[in-house]
């Protein structure tokens, strides 16, 4: 029963793999626009918005600051309508590279404070595991003071505009952070009453379900928890069950540390800006070849990939993707990236194209990656080998068995995510070639 590390895994040593139950949500609302203001003080006090570049046409608003929203500028609105509603609106050139770089710096800063830091899917929101911090810093108020001092030490803006939510689990911490400006602390014994006061809009379920709940007159979580679970499941399926678990505080999502990978970055600068997609694809193929050749990652497949570019006349463009089936194949990566770029093409000609592998998966199934190295060292007196090496005798035995039985019977145990709570993600069996 070596893989029993579920919700009751507290009995198991090595609890650091299981994340933190107490969570601190660290959130900068309007992160991108606030960064723009921090970069250019002339923008302070003016209504700002970022156009949506995902369609490549930039005809709609992606997000607006509070001042813009107060003047009727809303996400999804046509640019022409937004400018008509708010003639003084300033449209910022999106610079996703700069936003991501700022996120990374904040992550590094938070990691100095806690070993358990996880970033949310949206930029500007992070979860910090604070289990055991009482013994280090005292009560939650003091812990928050400590963090604010660290943020202020880096930048007064970071400390001044952050919202903090302290609660058991990420969901409640997230809700706490958005419930009030500044900070909100929810102690474990207050969790249920705190959640009861919240609107159903805080639930991480589909907008359709939220709309249906509101139409049924269920606008707050205290009303939701009065409904029998069977009725919710009958109406909303599994979403209904999950919503109830969150609303009652039964479901606590721990903060899990995000492993810091050393990224592989390659770039290509163009003497003359290039605008045609065919040329971008050709440049990308070259970059993929260079990045995959980096020897330290030859035995890994690529899971997270980012393509970015410096644009002619300023600004940047980027796409960032997590690949469902990690691969080390240049052709598959190229095909994947082309399909993504076709959906979100760069809006202008490129001066520089950059490629980054920022997350890696298990060793790829592609041929060659597990090829034994002729110069691989062996440990005398044992059968220990380095990753990717096969003892010749074992290799020969595998070949003989396959010939006799018509199928492979020898497997390599491959470590994937040894700390995962899900047993099947920890190791995989890979048939010996």
């Amino acid at each position, binding site marked *: *029963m*070596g*893989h*029993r590390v*579920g*919700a*009751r*895994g507290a009995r198991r040593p090595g609890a650091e793999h299981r994340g933190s139950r107490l969570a601190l949500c660290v959130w900068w609302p309007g992160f991108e626009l606030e960064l723009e203001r921090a970069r250019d003080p002339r923008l302070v006090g003016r209504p700002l918005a970022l156009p949506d570049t995902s369609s490549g046409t930039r005809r709609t608003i992606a997000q607006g600051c509070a001042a813009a929203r107060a003047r009727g500028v809303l996400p999804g609105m046509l640019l022409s309508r937004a400018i008509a509603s708010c003639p003084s609106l300033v449209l910022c050139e999106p610079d996703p590279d700069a936003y991501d770089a700022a996120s990374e710096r904040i992550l590094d800063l938070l990691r100095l404070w806690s070993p358990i830091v996880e970033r*949310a*899917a949206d930029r500007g929101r992070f979860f910090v595991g604070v289990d055991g911090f009482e013994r280090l810093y005292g009560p939650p108020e003091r812990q928050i003071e400590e963090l604010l001092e660290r943020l202020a030490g880096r930048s007064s803006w970071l400390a001044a505009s952050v919202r903090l939510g302290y609660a058991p689990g*990420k*969901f409640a911490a997230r809700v706490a952070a958005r419930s009030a400006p500044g900070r909100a602390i929810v102690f474990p014994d207050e969790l249920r009453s705190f959640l009861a006061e919240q609107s159903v809009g805080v639930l*991480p379920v589909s907008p359709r379900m939220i709309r249906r709940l509101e139409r049924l007159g269920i606008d707050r979580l205290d009303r939701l928890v009065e409904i029998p679970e069977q009725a919710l499941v009958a109406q909303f399926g*599994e979403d209904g*069950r*999950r919503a109830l*678990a*969150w609303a009652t505080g039964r*479901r*606590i*999502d721990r903060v899990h540390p995000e492993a810091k990978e050393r990224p592989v970055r390659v770039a290509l600068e163009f003497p003359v800006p290039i605008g045609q997609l065919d040329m971008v694809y050709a440049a990308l193929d070259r970059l993929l070849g260079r990045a995959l050749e980096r020897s330290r990652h030859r035995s890994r497949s690529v899971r997270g990939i980012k393509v970015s570019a410096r644009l002619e006349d300023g600004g940047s463009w980027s796409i960032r993707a997590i690949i469902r089936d990690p691969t080390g194949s240049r052709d598959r990566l190229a095909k994947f990236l082309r399909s993504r770029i076709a959906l979100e093409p760069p809006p202008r000609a490129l001066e520089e194209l950059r490629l980054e592998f920022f997350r890696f998966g298990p060793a790829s199934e592609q041929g060659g990656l597990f090829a034994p190295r002729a110069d691989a060292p062996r440990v005398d007196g044992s059968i220990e080998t380095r990753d990717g090496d096969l003892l010749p005798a074992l290799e020969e035995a595998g070949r003989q068995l396959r010939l006799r039985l018509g199928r492979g019977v020898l497997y390599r145990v491959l470590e994937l995510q040894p700390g995962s*709570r*899900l*047993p*099947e993600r920890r190791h995989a069996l890979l048939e010996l070639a």
Partner: protein
Amino acid sequence: MRVAANEAGIPTRLLFGGERREVGAVLDRWRIDDEWWREPISRVYFSLVLEGGAHLILYHDLVEDLWYRQSE
């Protein structure tokens, strides 16, 4: 995998190795909820001893409402 469970969701009988087997004892039970912000994972695991002594670990996938055997 086909599993019959009681009202509390605890497996009582299952089709194992092509034949119906009664659950002799539930040694342990635990739950994993994860990744609600991505593709939610919600499972209840059971460590079981079947009548006859075979030991296995099952989980009920609450998202799909399906039962699976967890290989050890």
